[in-house]
């Protein structure tokens, strides 16, 4: 399995990165939240971003999505620097979900996804009022696309329910559908399994694989180690704003420094063996 992973990574490395963070540093006053981090995401791979609380994951995430302008270094998406405006970033092809679900609670599931199409449509007020051909074409396309995406994430039965009435797991999936509606090349998921039960987590995992199979790159921030190590092609571990290690899940999880960062110093071999054991169990199951 490890061999396959490395082959895959090696193959990816020869391609142009979709997203490249070069020596990104973010300072807030005296605090260095992110310190010279390099980060590459290639098309069609799932990249994990892990780190203990306060490691600067969210800050780094915000640098990637253009919410913050890095103090130094730069972020290249598809070869160009992103403008620091969320909607331009979306237009460029990067979509995100939120750690604490931020759906449009009082809109239906279908409408939520249709909002995601906003940046890919351009019908103005005039054509909307006279119901011109452009409006009708776009509206039909938007509706069909939104319906298809709901089916894709497995929510086709709930198109007309209000977002706030959906079960928790469905809300997470709806958020992903909404993000996918913006036609992204890269999808950033901020803790997609927070608060989920094991079954829902497994469904989320399948969904993310399905998205990857569509040719999208996915970046996942997560606390759930098992989830990350099952899912990702490569993992970056941030600790205190610094990139501790980047590599395949196997490399990362067996690295003593990662274990130390998470659990603290101890009889290292034991801890490593334990984590490994868990991981294998999961694989077999």
């Amino acid at each position, binding site marked *: 399995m490890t061999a396959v992973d490395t082959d895959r990574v090696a193959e990816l490395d020869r391609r142009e990165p979709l997203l490249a963070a070069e020596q990104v540093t973010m300072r807030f006053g005296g605090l260095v939240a992110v310190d010279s981090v390099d980060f590459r995401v290639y098309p069609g791979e799932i990249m994990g971003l892990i780190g203990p609380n306060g490691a600067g994951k969210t800050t780094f995430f915000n640098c990637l999505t253009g919410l913050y302008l890095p103090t130094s270094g730069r972020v290249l998406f598809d070869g160009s620097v992103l403008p620091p405006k969320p*909607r331009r970033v979306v237009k460029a092809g990067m979509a995100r979900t939120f750690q604490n679900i931020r759906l449009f609670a*009082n*809109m239906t599931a279908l*409408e939520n996804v249709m*909002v995601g199409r906003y*940046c890919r449509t351009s*019908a103005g007020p005039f054509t909307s*009022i006279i119901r011109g051909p452009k409006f009708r074409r776009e509206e039909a396309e938007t509706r069909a696309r939104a319906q298809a995406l709901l089916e894709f994430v497995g929510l086709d039965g709930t198109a007309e329910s*209000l977002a706030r009435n959906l079960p928790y797991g469905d809300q997470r999936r709806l958020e992903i559908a*909404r993000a996918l509606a913006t036609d992204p090349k890269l999808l950033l998921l901020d803790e997609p399994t927070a608060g989920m039960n094991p079954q829902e987590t497994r469904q989320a995992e399948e969904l993310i694989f399905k998205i990857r199979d569509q040719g999208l790159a996915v970046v996942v921030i997560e606390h759930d180690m098992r989830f990350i190590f099952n899912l990702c092609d490569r993992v970056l571990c941030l600790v205190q704003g610094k990139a501790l290690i980047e590599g395949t899940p196997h490399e990362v999880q067996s690295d003593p420094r990662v274990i130390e960062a998470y659990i603290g110093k101890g009889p290292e071999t034991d801890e490593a063996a334990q984590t490994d054991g868990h991981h294998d169990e999961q694989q077999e199951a």
Partner: protein
Amino acid sequence: MRIPQLVSPEQQQRLHPIGTVLTVVGGLVLLASTFLPWAYSSAALDDMTILGYPSTLQLYAAGFGLGAAVFAFLGRRLARGDGRQVVGWTRGAKTASVAAAVYLVVILGSIGLELGGLVNVVYGGWVALVGALVALVGSRLLVSGRPPRLARRVPPAWLGILSIAAAMAVVLYAAYYGLDQEDAGGFVSFVVVAIGAVAVLFRLGVMRWLSAVSGRHRKVLIFAAFLTAFAFPFTQNGSDENMSIATQVLIFAVTALGLNIVVGLAGLLDLGYIAFLGAGAFTAAILSNSVFSTVDWHPPFIVVVLISGAVSGTLGLIIGTPTLRVSGDYLAIVTLAFGEIFRFGMINLDGTDGPDLTNGSNGIPGVPDLNLFGLDFKDTHTVLGIQLGRFANYYFLLLVLIAVVILIFVRLNNSRIGRGWVAIREDEKAAEAMGVNVFGLKLFAFASGAFLAGVAGSIKAHHDVSVTPDQYIFLESAFLLAAVVLGGMGTVLGVLVGATLLKLMPEKLRFVEEYRLLIFGLLLVVMMRFRPEGLVASKRRQLEFHDDDDELAEKIQSDIDEREATGVVPVGGQA
């Protein structure tokens, strides 16, 4: 709004037969009492002194009594089954009983007030009150059953269309009849009766059925509604009094619809909206042929309408660009201040403090009547032998305008722009992160709302004859906002209803005029407590506020039924 139950649902199950008997008897007693005299003198309300010949007001009571009795009788078997029902007979009986009791208290109270003491109420009145109270107590013992399923019945198309036509005819007649009531007492009792009747129809499930039918025949509904509105002046036969109220209502409603885009869709609280109406009115007045006009250019009215809209829209852009970066309460404060700045600006553009544009606080009087396509608006025209006066002319013009505004509102709402607005209202940050142009859309909502208000203002200037700064005070903005909130944010029908209520009541009821701030304030507080989504809820709002209500309970119950029927027992006891 809930009226508390006297007994628990289990007790209702047992007491249902007794309740049925009491309600039927009470209702019939009330019905019978209307043939008895209620008052000593015919000076109160209408003539209720005659034995064996009910007056109009007594007939209303008879209607409620008969309704309560018949509905309770038809719902007599409800307690035996599982509560499924097509028409909510017992619900209707409950509401009819409450309406009867309230109505009688109002009527007997008015007799007492007008004739000086309750001694003037004759035995018939007391019999009626007893009948109503018996029915009220009896109806409280009835089971409600599940929500009626009438709305799910799909009638043949001809029946649906006929029902819409009949409903519109009733609305037209009610408008004619209600406005025809000269004295406050007659008007108030009519309003109570109308509200009661609508409430009963709601509880029976008829209203929901009607709205489902209208949903299926949307075009017919819209056509019928406009035909009804169009027919209204013909019921007035040249009387200017009610037509003047009707035109004021329309101007108010058009402006409120514009505000509804800003507040109801985009969720921007605008407390200075009246300034845009004022800007349009001043522009139109200055460009009109009034001798007090301060410029020498007097283009035709079609051009003036567009210029007024453009001036207001531009003003919207100017005020919006810096202020729309703040939101919520801050935006409200800024717009409030803007409304005042506008008013003082108009007062000061008088030639001493600034250029002479508006004649200061005197404003621009003598704005001539419109003359469009050879039709002089000050003339009275005779169509089919019915006279249509000056206000009727404005009424028709405003009807065209309101049709256009409704079209714009509905179509923008059902487009990507409308979805963007609602998304912004729901969660601005998330909308931004999903690629919605938040600032641009907010600005567009502000500017388009302002444009529509400006267009309305240009007609208002001619309608009102004179335009002065003190017509455009903060209070008017507050009333516009009240109309939107009261009627139902984000809906067309709701805002029309709200605007009608808020304009009509002070006109028909002088005592409301005096205490209108108090009354509207109370009304808003009561609404926020019992029906926060407004009189007419948009589908979305209804789901938002009453999620946990009947419908959901009904759905869960039917789910459980289905499971039991199919023998599938939910695992883990989650049901």
